[in-house]
C-alpha cells in the first residue's frame, strides 16, 4: 500500500476528520479566549464531558441495533435522586455501596425498557418515549418534589467523582474505564459483533443464528446501567439532586453519536467516533459562555449541529451506496 492511498484512507475515516474539526474549533475559540487552551481548562472540559461520553456510548449500542433510547435522561434523574436519598437517609452506608445501588437501579430500568422492546414487541421509540415520562414522574413522586442539597450528602459520596488518581479526576477515570470496556465489547466480543449484525441486516442476522431478543434486551440493559452510573456521578459532581436532572440529555447523546458517524438507521459506527463526538459537544457547550454567547442559544445550536451532522451522514451514505451500485453494474 503506498502512502497516498494510506492518507486517503485516513482522510475517509470519520475519526480523523473529527479530530481535525476539534482542533480547528479549539483554535477558533482560543483566538477569542486565550485561556481556553490551558491544561487546567482542558481537563475541566474533559471532566465535564465524561458523563456525556459514557452515556453516549450506551446510546451508541442502542442506535447501532437500529433503536433509540429517549429515556436515558430520565434514568439519570431517577438513579441520581435515588442514590442521593439513600445517601441522605443512611450517612453510615459506604459511598461505594450507594454507587452500586444507583447503578443497579439504572440497570433495572434499562431492563424494563429491554423487556418491553424484546418480549413485548413495543417499538423502541414508543417504549422509551413512554418510560421517559414514567421514570421522570416517578422521580418527582419519590422525592415529593424536593431537592437533595450538598450539606445533606456525605463527603465520601461527593468524592466519588471529585477524588483523583495520578492527577486525573475519578470522573475522567470512570469515563476511560467505561469507554475501554465497551470498546472491547463492541469490537472483540461475540455479543458486540451481533449488535452490528442486527443493525446491519436483521433478517440475515437471524438466519445465521443471532438472537434478536437477546441483543435488544442487552443493549437497553447496557444503556440503563451506564445511565444509572451517570446519575450517581452527576448528583455527586454537582452536589445536588434536583428532579429535573439531565432533562433533554437524550438529545446530546444522540448528537454525540451522529457527529461520531453512527448511522441512525443502525449497523455502522464505532466507539472512538462516539467519544470524539461527545467531546465535540462538550467543547461547544463549554465554549459558548467563554466567547460571550448567551447560554440560551445552546438548545438552538445543539439542534442545528445534530441536523447538520445527520445531513452529512445521510448524503455520504447515499453517495457510497450509489458508488457501490455503479461498481457492481460496471
Amino acid at each position, binding site marked *: 500500500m503506498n502512502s497516498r492511498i494510506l492518507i486517503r484512507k485516513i482522510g475517509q475515516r470519520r475519526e480523523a476528520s473529527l479530530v481535525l474539526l476539534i482542533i480547528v474549533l479549539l483554535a477558533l475559540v482560543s483566538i477569542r479566549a486565550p485561556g481556553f487552551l490551558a491544561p487546567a481548562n482542558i481537563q475541566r472540559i474533559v471532566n465535564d464531558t465524561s458523563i456525556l461520553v459514557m452515556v453516549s456510548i450506551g446510546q451508541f449500542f442502542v442506535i447501532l441495533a437500529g433503536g*433509540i433510547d429517549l429515556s436515558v435522561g430520565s434514568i439519570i434523574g431517577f438513579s441520581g435522586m435515588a442514590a442521593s436519598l439513600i445517601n441522605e437517609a443512611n450517612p453510615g452506608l459506604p459511598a461505594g455501596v450507594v454507587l452500586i445501588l444507583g447503578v443497579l437501579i439504572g440497570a433495572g430500568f434499562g431492563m424494563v425498557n429491554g423487556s*418491553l422492546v424484546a418480549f413485548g414487541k413495543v417499538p423502541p*421509540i414508543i417504549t422509551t418515549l413512554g418510560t421517559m415520562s414514567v421514570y421522570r414522574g416517578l422521580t418527582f413522586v419519590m422525592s415529593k418534589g424536593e431537592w437533595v442539597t450538598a450539606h445533606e450528602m456525605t463527603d465520601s459520596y461527593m468524592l466519588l467523582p471529585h477524588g483523583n488518581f495520578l492527577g486525573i479526576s475519578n470522573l475522567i477515570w470512570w469515563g476511560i474505564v467505561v469507554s475501554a470496556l465497551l470498546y472491547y465489547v463492541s469490537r472483540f466480543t461475540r455479543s458486540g459483533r451481533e449488535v452490528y449484525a442486527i443493525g446491519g441486516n436483521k433478517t440475515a442476522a437471524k438466519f445465521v443464528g443471532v438472537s434478536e431478543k437477546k441483543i435488544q434486551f442487552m443493549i437497553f440493559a447496557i444503556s440503563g446501567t451506564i445511565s444509572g452510573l451517570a446519575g450517581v456521578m452527576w448528583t455527586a459532581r454537582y452536589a445536588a439532586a434536583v428532579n429535573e436532572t439531565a432533562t433533554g440529555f437524550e438529545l446530546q447523546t*444522540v448528537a454525540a453519536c451522529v457527529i461520531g458517524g453512527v448511522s441512525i*438507521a443502525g449497523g455502522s459506527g464505532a466507539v472512538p467516533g462516539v467519544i470524539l463526538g461527545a467531546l465535540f459537544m462538550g467543547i461547544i457547550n463549554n465554549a459558548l459562555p467563554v466567547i460571550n454567547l448567551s447560554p440560551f442559544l*445552546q438548545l438552538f445550536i445543539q*439542534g442545528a449541529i445534530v441536523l447538520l451532522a445527520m445531513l452529512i451522514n445521510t448524503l455520504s451514505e447515499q453517495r457510497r451506496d450509489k458508488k457501490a451500485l455503479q461498481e457492481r453494474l460496471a
Partner: protein
Amino acid sequence: MKRQEDTFNRDVAGPDLVASTRLVNENSLKERLILIFTKWEVLLGVLLLLVFVFFSNISPYFLDTFNLLNTTFTFTEKAVMALPMIFIIMSGDIDISVASIIALSSFSMGYASSMGAGTWELVAIGVAVGLAAGIFNGFFIAKVGMPAIAVTLATQSLFRGISQAVLEDQAYTKYPQSFAYFGQGYVGESLVPFSLVFFLVLAAIMGFVLHKTKYGRKVYAIGNAKEAARFCGVHVNRIRFINFALMGLFSGIAAVLLTSRIGSTRPNIALGYDMEVITLVVLGGVSITGGKGNLFGVLMAIFLLGYLKFGMGLINLSAKVMVITTGVLLIVAVLLPAFLDSVKAWRKLRLQKQGSSMESV
C-alpha cells in the same frame, strides 16, 4: 388414503400445523361476542364509560354539563394535533417536534403582537409559521431521505431553540383582546366552546380525507407495505411530505388555540405535548408499525384521556401522576393489542385442536 396423509403430515409438521388449517365454528354467539368486545374501539368505549361511572360516583362535580364542556378547553389543542399525527404514524413515520413547532409558532405570534399586529394577522402568522416548520421537517425526511425520528429529534431542539434564544427568560403576554376568542370563547350564547366545535369540524374533514379519499387509502397502503405501494405507483415520498406539512399546519392551528387560551408565550410552552399527542393516536388503535387503525378510535382516545385527566384532577392527583399515567397508557396501548392477538390465536388453535381430537374419537 386420507388417514395416511394425515399421519404423514403429523410426522413432518406436528399436530399444531395440521390443526391450524382446520375450520372451526366462529359464528356462535359466544365467539361473536368475544370478537366484538375485543375490538379496540369497543374497549375504549367501555373504558370511557368506566371513567364516567367511576368519577361521577367519587365527585359530584364530574357529571355536570358545564364542567364536561369546559374541560374540553384543556385538550382540544392536543386533539387537533392528533389528527394529522394519525396520517404520520399510519404511514410508519413519527414526529416528535410538534410541541416545539407550537413554541416557534407561538413565539412568532408574540413577536408580531409586540410589533402591533392585529388578531387576523396573528392567526395567519401562527398558522403559516407552523406550516413552514412542517415543510422544513418534510423536506429533510421525504426529499433528502433522513429518518423521521432523527430529523424531528433535531428540530425539536432547533424550533424551541429559536424561541428560547430570543425570549431567554422573558415572555410575551400582550395579545389583542379579540385574539382571546379562539381559545376561550363560546359559540354564541351557548356553553359550547368554540375550540371544541372547531376541532370537531377539523376531525370530520380529516376523517373524510383518511377514509373516503384516494389520499387516505394511499396512506394506508404506505403503512402496510411501503415498497409495494411504491411499485403500485403511489408517490410515497410526496405523500409523506404532505403528511409532515399537514402536521406543521395543524400544529400552527393548535398554537393559535393554545396561545389564545393562556394569553402568553414562554419558551417552555407546550412542553411534553409530543408524547401526549402520540399517546392519543397510539391509544386510539393506530398501529405504530403502520397501516392499522381509524379516526374514530383516536376520537375515543381523545375523550377518554381528557376526561380521565379531568377526573384525576378532581380527586387531587398531582400533574406528575398524570404524566406517569400517560406514559404507562402509551406503552400499554401498544402491548395490549399484540397480547390480545396472540391470546386470540392461541384460543383458536385450541378450538381447532379440540375439533381434531373429537374427530378422531
